[in-house]
């Protein structure tokens, strides 16, 4: 029996191993999401009893969508999702525009102090948000705002307090700078020779060929904003502006003990809520994943 494999056989074996490993990883990564979605269909006691076996991933037993109805009764989920979408999309939209323009100026224009400014921006990355949360709170609680009610002071309980402090982001600027530097500078020189101004070069030359970095920045910033918890806990006191992650707290409490079957966390409702608030994140990733993967794959490759 000939044990030496032909090239074709080797290739087939390699492929099988590769796909086997990838499938295994896919299953491992999918486990938490499957657990969450399956559990959202089960009563809390069944979730707890199934959690120590593979039954946790199987939609069997007392299956229903009751948890979703109960979750909507427990918390104004529609409002929370709306608020988070508003805050995330506006911050993301304005952030992509402003951070990319800043990065364009830092990467492609020549001006005095350029490197110092870039260094300072990058240096701010080492500051955790928690260290500036209190000073920022003191500032925003006194800032003026011109709205429909005229000039008012203090931004607490508003959308702007959740948006404006997070539009400018050092990491996004850094990402854009790295990407813009990798683009051939001849493109900009050619546009300059053709008489284009800096904004026109940015908008019509650079942006159209920078899809991957925009997608990456959008996903990273979008996730960060969607997952905001500490800051809204500090500055939002009204249900009206509360985002989804603070809303999670509505489900993090023991249910009343005098009703049969209660006295434990409402795990089923919690999983239903998590499933609902995970959907926008999955949609965002699916919409941008090709560009995101491309960006990751080409990181560090000079043009």
């Amino acid at each position, binding site marked *: 029996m000939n044990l030496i494999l032909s090239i074709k056989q080797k290739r087939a074996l390699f492929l099988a191993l590769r796909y086997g490993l990838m499938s295994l990883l896919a299953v491992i990564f999918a486990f938490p999401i499957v657990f969450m979605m399956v559990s959202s269909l089960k009563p809390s*006691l069944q979730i*707890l*009893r199934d*959690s*120590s076996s593979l039954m946790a991933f199987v939609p069997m037993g007392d299956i229903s969508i009751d948890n979703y109805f109960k979750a*909507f*009764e427990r918390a*104004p*989920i*529609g*409002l929370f999702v*709306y*608020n988070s*979408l*508003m805050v995330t*999309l*506006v911050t*993301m*939209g304005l952030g*992509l525009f402003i951070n990319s323009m800043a990065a364009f100026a830092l990467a492609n224009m020549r001006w005095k102090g350029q490197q110092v400014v870039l260094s300072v921006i990058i240096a701010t990355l080492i500051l955790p948000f928690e260290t500036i949360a*209190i000073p920022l*709170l003191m500032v925003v*609680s006194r800032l003026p705002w011109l709205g*429909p009610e005229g000039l008012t002071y*203090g931004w*607490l309980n508003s*959308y702007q307090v959740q948006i404006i402090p997070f539009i400018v982001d050092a990491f996004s600027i850094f990402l854009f700078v790295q990407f813009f530097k990798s683009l051939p500078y001849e493109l900009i020189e050619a546009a300059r020779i053709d008489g284009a101004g800096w904004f026109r070069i940015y908008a019509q030359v650079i942006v*159209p*060929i920078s*899809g*991957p970095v*925009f*997608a990456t920045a*959008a996903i990273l910033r979008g996730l960060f904003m969607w997952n905001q918890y500490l800051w809204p*806990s*500090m*500055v939002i*006191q009204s*249900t*009206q*502006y509360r985002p989804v992650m*603070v*809303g999670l*707290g*509505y489900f*993090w*409490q*023991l249910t*009343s*003990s*005098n009703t*049969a*079957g*209660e*006295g*434990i*966390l409402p795990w089923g409702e919690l999983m239903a809520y998590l499933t609902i608030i995970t959907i926008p994140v999955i949609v965002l990733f699916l*919409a*941008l994943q090709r*560009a995101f993967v491309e960006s990751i794959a080409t990181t560090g490759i000079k043009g």
Partner: protein
Amino acid sequence: MKSKVWNILAGLAIFAMLLTACGAPATAPAAPITAATEAPVDAATEAPVVSTGPTKLSMWYHGAGNKTEKDVLLGIIKDYNESQDMYMVEVQDFPQISYNESVVAAALAGNLPDIIDVDGPVMPNWAWAGYMAPLDIPQDKLDTFLPTTIGKWNGKVYSVGLWEAACAMYARKSVLDKYGIRIPTLEQPWDLEEFNAAMETLKASGEYEYVLDMGMAWKGEWYPYGFSPFLQSFGGDIIDRSTFTTAEGALNGPEAIAFGEWWQNLFTKGYVSGTTQDSADRDTGFIDGKYALQWNGNWAGGLAAEKLGDDLLILPAPNFGNGARIGAGSWQFGVSANSKNIPGATEFIEFMMQDKYMVQFSDVTGNIPATTTAAAASKNFAPGAPFEIFFNYSAAQATLRPPTPAYMSAALTFEKALADIANGADVITALDTAADEINADIKANKDYGFDGSVVGPSIKEDEIAKANAR
């Protein structure tokens, strides 16, 4: 492909702008079911817009998501608003898990409401920090309350609770009978030897991997609330209550070390599962028969009674030499120091202190009413009712966690020390380190005002004696 991505991003940005444009607060949509459930809030709290109308009193409350409890609160507010025309209370609810952060942030921003609710052990810190104002409520109104439902700091009352919670040892009668273990009573609880012997007997039976579910899956406040009464029963404490300026001797003296060694033995002898206990086991392990005993609060009583019926025993805490003790001090209501309407806010709290409201809270939450008369009228704690025993335990054994501003920091240190000991750390070193950390915090905060002008209750003449005297 690149232009497609750009189109998506541009679309998102435009959508975001449109959302902003449409996002005026008044038009923010809510899910239909939510709108229906939120309706009572508006009905109860919306004040008519008239310049000469009643003064608005803002109130913050920690129970967002707990609809039954909130409905009772809204009912009280409605009653109060209709009972007079000087004030109009408006409530804003917060999720409990982020409530303290919200209050502290609001205090820093100078944005506190008139009325707040506060967790009992946190109150002294907020009073010391200047977030809360003392309550001017006649003593005779307070006298009928369980002592641990009255929040005191520096000799003044700052908060009043309408309910209390209590811990007990859950067990099965059939199991204790089978192994010849005496059923303890409030008058004669298990002592240390008896309790240890019971656990040894149950462990030796081979029926249980772990005998006692202590709730190690729970973190945070459960440690000082659930476990510091054992330390106090040994004669130690988290902080020395005679001065409130040190943990030395209280947390690392001979009694505390004896407690620490007992605590560690629970784990080394395999009586209690470690700090990695599965939270599913905490919730259902006892009723499923995985554990013979469970240390838990009154909130677990409903499920246990439903599953075990007459076989369920709700036993008092053991007495390790210095009295049988359980934790005390639940959520209470107080007035913020920022309030421009302190008399009105105080009046509302006085209005809440009616038996009928305590009964309503108790009936929907399963918590213990704060007065004997309310307990007698409640469905769970009246004489002969299924959980009457919890009221008796609370009245006889409840011990406040140290009522000092240092508690908030000391509680975290205590939790770490107990978790370390459970995981095998040297008992004396762990307790010494904890005492040093607590002392350092007290020193850094200039003794939290305990310079002789502040009076705190002492554990030696604590509220248990007063309750027993009644």
